[in-house]
C-alpha cells in the first residue's frame, strides 16, 4: 500500500452567511490549498468532494454542481457523503485513491452553504428522521443531542458545568483561528449555563450553529512528495470508519460504539496499541460540547465517564497533556457540516507541520487523531496522522 501524506490545506471564513456561492467558496479553499503546496490543478489526478444533503443548497446533484469550483473539471471525480462524518470521511476516500496506487495527487474539497435554506436549515435536518416511527412526532434535530446528552450526564453523574467547560475552551481556542465565526476570549462557564435553554439539557452556547464555508486538503503519494521535495507534509498512518443502525432507539446512547470501532481500526493500522500514551493531541467532532467528551471516550482517549474529569483538570487545554480541539473546533470556528474538515484534517496538518500560528500547541507533537460523527447518532470516521 502506498504511503499517503497531506501536503496542503485551505479554507474560507466560516460565517452564518457568505456572499459567495458554493462553487466560489470551493474555488477559494481549493486554490489556497494548491498554492500552499506549490501545486497547480494540472498536478491533480483525481478529486473527491464531500458535502451534506442537497437540500441545504437547494441544488440536487450538489457534487456535480460544485465540480468546477472543486478543481474536478474533466477529471475522475466523486462526491461522498456520510452525514456529519463527511468532515473526516472524505479524506479517507481521498486516501484510498492514493494508497491503492491509482493516483499520485488527490484533492479533497468539502463545502456547505446552509444559509440558503430559509429561514433555518432545521426543516431540512428534520428529514433525517424515520418517516413512519419518528416524523409524526414533529421532531427537531436538537432532540437527538438533548437525549444523548441527558443519558450521558445521568449515567455517569456528569454536571452541566463540566460539559460547559468544553464550549468555553473551544471558543477561547478559536480566538487564534483566522476563519472563526464563534471565537470569544472572555466567555465563561456561567455564560454557557445562563444561555437560552433550547431543548434541555442543551442550551444555546452548548451548540455550534449552522455556517457557510468550504475547506480543501491535498493528499499525495510518498513518491510524489519525495520527487517534488515537499517539506510540509503529515502522513496519514491510520483510517477507520463504522456505522451503526438507524434504529437508534435500540441502543444505549451513553457510549458511541461505532466511534470506538472506527478508532480501533485506525489505531491498528497506525500500530497504536496504547492510544492514551501514543496520541499527542486530538480533534474530535464537537458540534455540541458534550460530544467532545463522548467522542474522547469513543476514541479510547478517556475511560467511560472520565472525559469531563480530564477537561476539568485542564488536561485537554492547548497547553495540557492531551490538547483537544486546539483549532477551536466546531464550537469555536463554526459548523458548516462537511467543511469542518478545515479544523479536523486541516488542523492536524497545520499543527504537525508547525504552521498553526497562534494556535500552535506549545510543546512538541508527533501524532494526532481527528474524528467526525454524523447521521442518526450512528456514524464515526477516524484519521490518525503523524508528523
Amino acid at each position, binding site marked *: 500500500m502506498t504511503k499517503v501524506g497531506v501536503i496542503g490545506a*485551505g479554507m*474560507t471564513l466560516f460565517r452564518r452567511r457568505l456572499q*459567495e456561492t458554493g462553487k466560489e467558496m470551493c474555488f477559494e479553499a481549493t486554490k489556497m490549498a494548491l498554492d500552499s503546496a506549490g501545486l497547480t490543478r494540472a498536478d491533480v489526478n483525481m478529486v473527491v468532494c464531500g458535502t451534506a444533503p442537497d437540500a441545504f443548497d437547494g441544488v440536487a446533484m450538489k457534487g456535480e454542481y460544485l465540480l468546477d469550483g472543486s478543481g474536478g473539471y474533466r477529471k475522475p471525480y466523486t462526491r461522498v457523503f456520510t452525514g456529519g462524518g463527511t468532515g473526516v470521511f472524505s479524506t479517507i476516500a481521498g486516501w484510498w485513491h492514493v494508497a491503492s496506487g491509482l493516483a499520485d495527487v488527490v484533492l479533497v474539497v468539502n463545502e456547505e452553504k446552509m444559509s440558503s435554506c430559509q429561514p*433555518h436549515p432545521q426543516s431540512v435536518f428534520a428529514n433525517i428522521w424515520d418517516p413512519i416511527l419518528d416524523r409524526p412526532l414533529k421532531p427537531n434535530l436538537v*432532540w437527538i443531542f438533548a437525549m444523548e446528552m441527558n443519558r450521558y450526564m445521568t449515567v455517569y453523574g456528569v454536571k452541566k458545568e463540566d460539559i460547559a467547560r468544553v464550549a468555553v475552551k473551544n471558543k477561547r481556542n478559536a480566538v487564534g483561528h*483566522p476563519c472563526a465565526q464563534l471565537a470569544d476570549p472572555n466567555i465563561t462557564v456561567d455564560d454557557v449555563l445562563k444561555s437560552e435553554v433550547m*431543548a434541555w439539557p442543551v442550551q444555546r452556547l452548548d451548540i455550534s450553529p449552522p455556517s457557510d464555508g468550504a475547506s480543501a486538503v491535498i493528499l499525495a503519494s510518498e513518491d510524489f512528495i519525495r520527487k517534488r521535495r515537499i517539506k510540509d507534509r503529515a502522513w496519514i498512518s491510520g483510517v477507520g470508519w463504522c456505522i451503526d443502525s438507524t*434504529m437508534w432507539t435500540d441502543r444505549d446512547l451513553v457510549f458511541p460504539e461505532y466511534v470506538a470501532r472506527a478508532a480501533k481500526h485506525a489505531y491498528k493500522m497506525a500500530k497504536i496499541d496504547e492510544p492514551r500514551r501514543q496520541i499527542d493531541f486530538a480533534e474530535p467532532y464537537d458540534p455540541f460540547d458534550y460530544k467532545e467528551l463522548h467522542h474522547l471516550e469513543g476514541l479510547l482517549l478517556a475511560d467511560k465517564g472520565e472525559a469531563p474529569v480530564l477537561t476539568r483538570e485542564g488536561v485537554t487545554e492547548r497547553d495540557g497533556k492531551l490538547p483537544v480541539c486546539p483549532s477551536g473546533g466546531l464550537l469555536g470556528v463554526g459548523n458548516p457540516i462537511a467543511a469542518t474538515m478545515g479544523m479536523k484534517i486541516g488542523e492536524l496538518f497545520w499543527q504537525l507541520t508547525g504552521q498553526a500560528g497562534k494556535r500552535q500547541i506549545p510543546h512538541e507533537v508527533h501524532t494526532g487523531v481527528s474524528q467526525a460523527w454524523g447521521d442518526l447518532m450512528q456514524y464515526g470516521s477516524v484519521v490518525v496522522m503523524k508528523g
Partner: protein
Amino acid sequence: MTARISRWPGIELRAADLLEGKVTQTRFRPDAKYAWSAGEAMSRFLQELQNGRFIARTCHKCERILFPPRMFCEECFRPTDEWTFIQDTGTIETFSVSYLDTDAKRIVEPILVGVVSLDGASSKMGMMHYFGEMTKDEIRIGMRVKAEWKPPADRRGSVLDIRYFRPVREGER
C-alpha cells in the same frame, strides 16, 4: 496556514443585507410530496397500534425480540421468525424538555420527549415518544411509564394513536 497566509477568503453577509434587499438573490420553494409505503413490518406494527398494542418480531438465532419490528435481523442477517406481542409499559431511557418546535421556532410550553424501552422486547429496545401527566421537574430517567392510547375510534394506524407515555399508576403493571 496561518503563519504564511495573509488573506482568508469569504465576504460576510448580515441578515439585514438579505432583508433589505442589499444582496442580489433568487428564491425557490420546492413543491415535493411523498407517499411512503410502510412496508411489511411497519404495516403490521401500525395496524396493531389501532388495536392498542405493540407487536415485535423474534429472531431464533440471536434470540432477540426485535422492536420496532423488522422482517430481517440486521445482526444475523437472516429473515426474522415470528410475530410476538410485547407490553405497553416500559422505562424512560432518556428524555429532553424541548422549547423548540420542529422548525426550531421557540415555544413557551415545553414538549417532554424521549426514548422508552418497552417491557417484553430485548434490553434497551424501544421507541421515541412524548411524555404526559408529569411535569418537567418530575420526569426522570428510569421512570416507569405506560402508553396512554387514544380512544379506539380516533386511532388511525400511526404512532400518534398513542397520545403519550404517562407514569405507571399504583396497581398497574
